[in-house]
């Protein structure tokens, strides 16, 4: 997946604890139903406090669409919603499971300190 550095901002002022993997964030956002760009930005901000910049968001959208993990729906006026595909759901599930294992292991180590 593409680099995750181009995140325009985060609501977390300290800059720590925010998660910035735009493609994964987009997939997670679309898991709750089709959304257009602005709705995705707001949803992701509510989900983890990370506010994706429009350039970053569309960089992720273009690549996810190419990979066949999301697909466009007919436009509503000038905005186009996207939805996650079955393949995208599969990838999201696999990635979140890996993250869960990683998180559990990491927190376990912190508790041992």
């Amino acid at each position, binding site marked *: 997946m593409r680099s995750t550095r*181009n995140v*325009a*901002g985060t609501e977390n002022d300290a800059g720590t604890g925010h998660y910035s993997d735009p493609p994964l964030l987009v997939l997670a956002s679309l898991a709750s139903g089709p959304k*257009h*760009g*602005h709705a995705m*930005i707001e949803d992701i901000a509510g989900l983890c406090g990370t506010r994706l*910049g*429009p*350039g*970053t*968001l*569309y*960089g992720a*959208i*273009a*690549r996810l*669409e*190419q*990979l066949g993990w999301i697909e466009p729906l007919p*436009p509503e*006026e*000038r*905005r*186009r919603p996207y939805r996650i595909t079955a393949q995208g759901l599969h990838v999201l599930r696999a990635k979140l499971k890996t993250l869960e294992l990683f998180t559990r292991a990491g927190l376990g180590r912190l508790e041992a300190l």
Partner: protein
Amino acid sequence: MNRVVAHLLTRLYPRDWRERYGEEFEALLQNGHGDLRTSANVIWSALGEHIFPTRGGNMDQHINSFGAIIKRPSAFLPLAMSLTALTLVLGHVAMFGAVREADEGTTAHLWQLLMAGQMPVLAFFAIKWLPRAPRQTLYVLALQTGAVLASMAPVFLLNL
């Protein structure tokens, strides 16, 4: 964001990308904040799209795109040779000072080899790629020329 600014920012993206995402992207920009951070994010992403284009949902890089051409050995080798030559000169000046020597040393010979050696590669690159993708090739040639001039500059400016 201001409509004109949103339009101008969208125009920074490659044409293929704009044809696919331009309208919805511009609508998104108009809907959002027009702060400096957003503009910087768009500028940076547009630049990335020029270098590693998704080409409107097609991630396979077009064979004649700038990003694809600059990765060709005949494109990046002259750049690398010029930068190596520049590093040699600057390293030599840093160690021994900007003193003109009567007898040309190893550094001078290496510099000459690097500068002369890249000329056939440059010529090959121009002959091969100019007819296929003139605009992108000219960008690469401009970069290569800049690198050549940069590596020649200290030699002539310091009269080495």
